[in-house]
């Protein structure tokens, strides 16, 4: 047994687009302990509710994270709407969910690429990002933005998708299916992928529950938890929704769950597009949240359950806005999966929780 040494990992590291620092305590090639240090991206934006009113804050909320931008603006808007008792038109709910599921497709494609890059499969990274560009094209056509959409407002949505545009969206999604199936088959059957992912970073079902893991990370350890299955908003109108589970608990299972979730999201978009009701896309919201009124909300982000809390004080500005993001839930699972792994697998394990540091630190 060698002497324990500490290897710093990050904050600037080729595998991470974001700054996360880990002190890896290693003995020979085995990681004994991983101590995360965060705070590089902390901006303190929850405090901005004091200077921005609840309509302006939605632009701050969606800039919590550029990957889950749509989800955060949706989660924030839903929280404020329940704080003020606003009923959103059905069509707006459908449009919100369609954009939210599209952003899940783009987020998972982004992640599949980064994961492939983490084990040195660079051409797969390029292929995944090539498909992701097609989803971003949909965003650009329907909202005008590529990553920051600015399409949700308190009381509805800003833009409508008409039938001709919706047909184009579906056609684009159908167009990527062929390529996506090929990518998925490679990721799920290729031996070189399996060598790097099977039995790496195993977390049992019991540990996943004990560590309060959420999202695809938990669902890969057979934790049956997905906020979408509560059936709120347009999700309630789906004919059938079952979370995608896998009992593998290793990196391979996490790749598999996310691969299948892309297909599931595309199915959801198609179903909702077919059922799309006619009507208004927004209601006028007047007044301010009552003094002492409180509301909370959960939303299934691409990375897992995100919790929102808001409290009013009788003025246009909120008293308090608070989020608990999926990555902060999953950090405990990540450090526990890192303990005892090989140094070469650290990249892969860190990526399989799909860390979103700017969500976590805000």
């Amino acid at each position, binding site marked *: 047994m060698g002497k324990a040494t500490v290897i710093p990992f990050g*904050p*600037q*590291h*080729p595998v991470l*687009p*974001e*700054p996360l620092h880990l002190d890896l305590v290693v003995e020979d090639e085995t990681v004994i302990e991983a101590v995360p240090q965060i*705070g*590089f*991206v*902390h*901006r*303190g*934006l929850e*405090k*901005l509710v004091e*200077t921005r009113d609840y309509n302006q804050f939605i*632009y*701050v909320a969606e*800039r*919590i*994270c*550029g*990957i889950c*931008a749509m989800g955060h603006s949706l989660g924030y808007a839903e929280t404020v709407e329940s704080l003020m008792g606003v009923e959103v038109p059905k069509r707006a709910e459908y449009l919100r969910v369609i954009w939210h599921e599209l952003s899940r497709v783009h987020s998972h494609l*982004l992640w599949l*690429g980064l994961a492939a890059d983490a084990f040195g499969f660079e051409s797969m*990274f*390029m*292929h995944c*990002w*090539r498909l*992701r*560009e097609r989803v*971003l094209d949909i965003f650009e056509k329907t909202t005008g933005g*590529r*990553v*920051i959409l600015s399409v949700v407002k308190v009381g509805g949505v800003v833009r409508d998708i008409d039938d001709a545009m919706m047909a184009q969206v579906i056609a684009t999604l159908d167009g990527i299916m062929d390529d996506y199936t090929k990518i998925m088959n490679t990721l799920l059957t290729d031996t070189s992928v399996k060598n790097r992912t099977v039995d790496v970073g195993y977390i049992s079902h019991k540990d996943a529950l004990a560590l309060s893991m959420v999202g695809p990370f938990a669902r890969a350890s057979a934790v049956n938890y997905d906020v979408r299955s509560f059936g709120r908003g347009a999700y309630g109108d789906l004919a059938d929704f079952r979370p995608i589970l896998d009992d593998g608990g290793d990196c391979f299972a996490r790749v598999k769950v996310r691969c299948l979730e892309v297909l599931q999201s595309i199915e959801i978009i198609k179903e909702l597009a077919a059922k799309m009701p006619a009507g208004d896309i927004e209601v006028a919201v007047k007044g301010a949240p009552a003094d002492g009124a409180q509301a909370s909300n959960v939303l299934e982000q691409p990375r897992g359950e995100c919790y929102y809390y808001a409290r009013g004080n009788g003025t246009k500005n909120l008293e308090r806005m608070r989020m608990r993001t999926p990555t902060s839930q999953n950090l405990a699972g990540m450090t526990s999966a890192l303990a005892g792994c090989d140094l070469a697998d650290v990249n892969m394990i860190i990526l399989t929780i799909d860390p*979103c540091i*700017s969500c976590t630190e805000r």
Partner: protein
Amino acid sequence: MAFASKSPWVIHYDGSSCNGCDIEVLATLCPGFDGERFGVVNTGNPKHADIFLVTGSVNEQNIDVVREIYNQMVEPKVVVACGICACSGGIFHDCYNVIGGVDKAIPVDVYAPGCAVRPEALIDAIVKGVAVLDEKSQALKESKKRGE
């Protein structure tokens, strides 16, 4: 600029950005916009890099990291501030933990605005950065000549 005098290698660091600009930096180098056809290669090593792409503003925690990466880069080097947060702090300029744009920490040569910065703007900024790189390397050569 009629031709690029060299293939600029870039290094990317996320200051305190929201990820929007980071994924646009990566998207610039991926199929779709394909910065690599101009020879732009993403490297993880500051010593190999010519152009430093910084996204997001600086804060107390990361200002030393930004300076450290800049100091480890070899002359001549160019800094591109990608996105409005890196230029001035953007929507987060009045947050308590935001010092301001990247130019509060290191000298910035090219500013690429946008929230999030568009890949077209980034490619433009990198091309402008190559021109600055040429100027700097010329100046470096001349100062060496004078030194001899």
